[in-house]
């Protein structure tokens, strides 16, 4: 496999270069996988956490807010670890106590769990949006782009404005249902 420098990887993330994304998965995902699996997580959790992490990094790069004070590998690992430990903390009071007792062992120069608070809801929404079928995703995207119902109807051959409106409503309902059934949402609601 071809090797890339951290600068090349960061630039590749900006442009969503498929080869670079593949390289990131091969190079950085295993350590996140083993950490999550060793800390009561499933493979699906590890994949979710890795996606959340890459979204955090991508957003930071795009907003010009990406300040790398450690290696990229450590950074990715630290963000993933913080997201996962935070979920564990919320799911168990006992773990919260233990975690707070060991806070001083955290890697200080890398992102803290507190920084990730705001992103939690975003991860929840993104994750569930991607559970929708392709048509629903596109309809909601067009709706948010303020395209007319007539345009949406023509694009998907829905047979009129009313049908397009109903379809959008059903897609939004499905999204809300997915979100409500997400264990993370249930956890957030209880806070």
């Amino acid at each position: 496999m071809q090797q890339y420098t951290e600068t090349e990887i960061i630039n590749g993330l900006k442009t969503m270069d498929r080869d670079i994304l593949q390289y990131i998965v091969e190079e950085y995902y295993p350590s996140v996988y083993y950490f999550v699996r060793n800390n009561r997580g499933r493979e699906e959790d590890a994949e979710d956490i890795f996606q959340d992490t890459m979204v955090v990094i991508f957003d930071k790069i795009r907003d010009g807010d990406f300040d790398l004070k450690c290696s990229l590998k450590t950074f990715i690992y630290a963000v993933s670890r913080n997201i996962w430990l935070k979920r564990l903390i919320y799911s168990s009071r006992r773990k919260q106590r233990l975690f707070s007792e060991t806070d001083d062992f955290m890697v200080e120069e890398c992102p803290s769990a507190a920084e990730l608070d705001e992103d939690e809801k975003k991860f929840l929404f993104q994750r569930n949006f991607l559970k929708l079928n392709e048509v629903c995703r596109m309809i909601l995207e067009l709706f948010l782009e303020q395209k007319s119902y007539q345009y949406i109807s023509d694009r998907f051959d829905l047979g009129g404005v009313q049908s397009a409106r109903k379809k959008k409503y059903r897609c939004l309902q499905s999204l809300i249902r997915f979100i409500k059934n997400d264990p993370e949402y249930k956890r957030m609601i209880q806070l």
Partner: protein
Amino acid sequence: MKDISKQYELFLSYYNGELTGNERAAFEKEMEENEELKEAFSDFTLLLRTLKDKESLEMRREFKSLLEKRRKNNTSWIRSIFLNPWSAAAAALFVLIIAVYFLYINLFNDEGSQDQRIMAETTSIDWNHPDFQVLPEYTELLKIEYRSVGFMLLSPHDSLVMHKGEEMKFSWKPSKKKLMIDILDHQGNTVISTDEPVSGPYFQPLILEPGAYLFRIRDHEESLHWGIFFCVP
């Protein structure tokens, strides 16, 4: 976070400017008075902003597809073994041979010769060989495991492999809490014990024969943490 599902049609109409002047005013007044509604609306607008951020969604979608592909590739060879009857039979035979081999060892090797074998194997290993050097990322993983439960064993080389005569440091939080430490050999015999509760950090010289050992941190009622380390000459 508040429940966004109850009023999202109203939220959407407000967001899109589809409410009449009176409806809009009433909704804004209600939000001023109702913190829960205000928070739910704020979450709803975040949802819409998230869905509008196509780049970020695209990034997640790309990684999701790559990770799914990776998972399928990793499991497909295992699945292919069991889909093919000949390879399934070969795998079963292999497992059977391994099982019989280990049963044979357990049934016919007496305890004394097992001890000698384990001791001989441990002492004959070249622990300085590069294969046994603990990689930094795994050392880090090990520490995190310890951190997550509040107990730590610190060794001079920051690894699980320690030399005879070196000093191990056991620590836990809160350190004032008195606990007992036991070190057990591979047969489960306690070879070192503090006997009485001690406060942390606790230092223990490694006065053991080469081999693999378990350490246990406990109070009078239960074991709180287990770990493993290797003593080498």
